[in-house]
């Protein structure tokens, strides 16, 4: 039984992370990867930057993973999140869960990524093909009428 969370400045090695969840008592493994999409809310994304308040984020991620073990009875759960510059197609986040059965593996994996997105102090700045950029949820989404995406004023 174990949990593990890390930030990574470089490409996530999913094979290495998956290996940390191996367990002969487990019959089900569920994983999620978030990939950088080439579009968001109608804009063409070229690349993005992730920035994190790492101390708080790591604490909060530890709580989320522990909650997943307790709530769903899974054996192992891990998560790694990129920070820094990412190109379209790169993996921004990986979540993996192993469990005796598939039902709890799926449910715990879904719980973890939902909570990670909701609770961790991590920010994403999108750079668009048209030259604009913006912090997601701060600039455009906070001003639904304006839908501004110019660089910070």
């Amino acid at each position: 039984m174990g949990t593990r969370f890390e930030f990574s400045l470089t490409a996530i090695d999913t094979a290495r992370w998956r290996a940390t969840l191996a367990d002969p008592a487990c019959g089900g493994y569920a994983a999620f990867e978030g990939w950088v999409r080439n579009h968001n809310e109608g804009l063409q994304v070229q690349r993005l930057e992730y920035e994190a308040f790492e101390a708080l984020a790591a604490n909060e991620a530890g709580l989320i993973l522990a909650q997943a073990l307790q709530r769903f009875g899974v054996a192992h759960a891990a998560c790694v999140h990129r920070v820094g510059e990412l190109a379209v197609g790169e993996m921004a986040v990986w979540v993996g869960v192993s469990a005796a059965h598939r039902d709890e593996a799926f449910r715990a994996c879904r719980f973890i990524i939902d909570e990670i997105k909701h609770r961790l102090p991590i920010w994403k700045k999108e750079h668009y093909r048209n030259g604009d950029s913006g912090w997601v949820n701060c600039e455009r989404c906070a001003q639904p009428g304006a839908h501004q995406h110019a660089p910070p004023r």
Partner: protein
Amino acid sequence: MSTRRISVQYYALLREQAGCRGEQVETAAVTAADLYAELRRRHPFTLDAGMLRVAVNAQFSDWSRPLRDGDAVVFIPPVAGG
């Protein structure tokens, strides 16, 4: 009026608008809410406090919790991990 020395760190949009990653402030602000109001007078922060959360000493905190000398405060814009 007594003051306290608070370390403030900025991330993301707040970092860009403050023009720095953090600063030490000598402040009479009693709570984190007071402190953000004070800092908005010095920096062009566009985000209202209602859109932020606050962390004190790397723990999520209440806006009304009294600040103590030496506290480390982080104002947390809307998150977008994953």
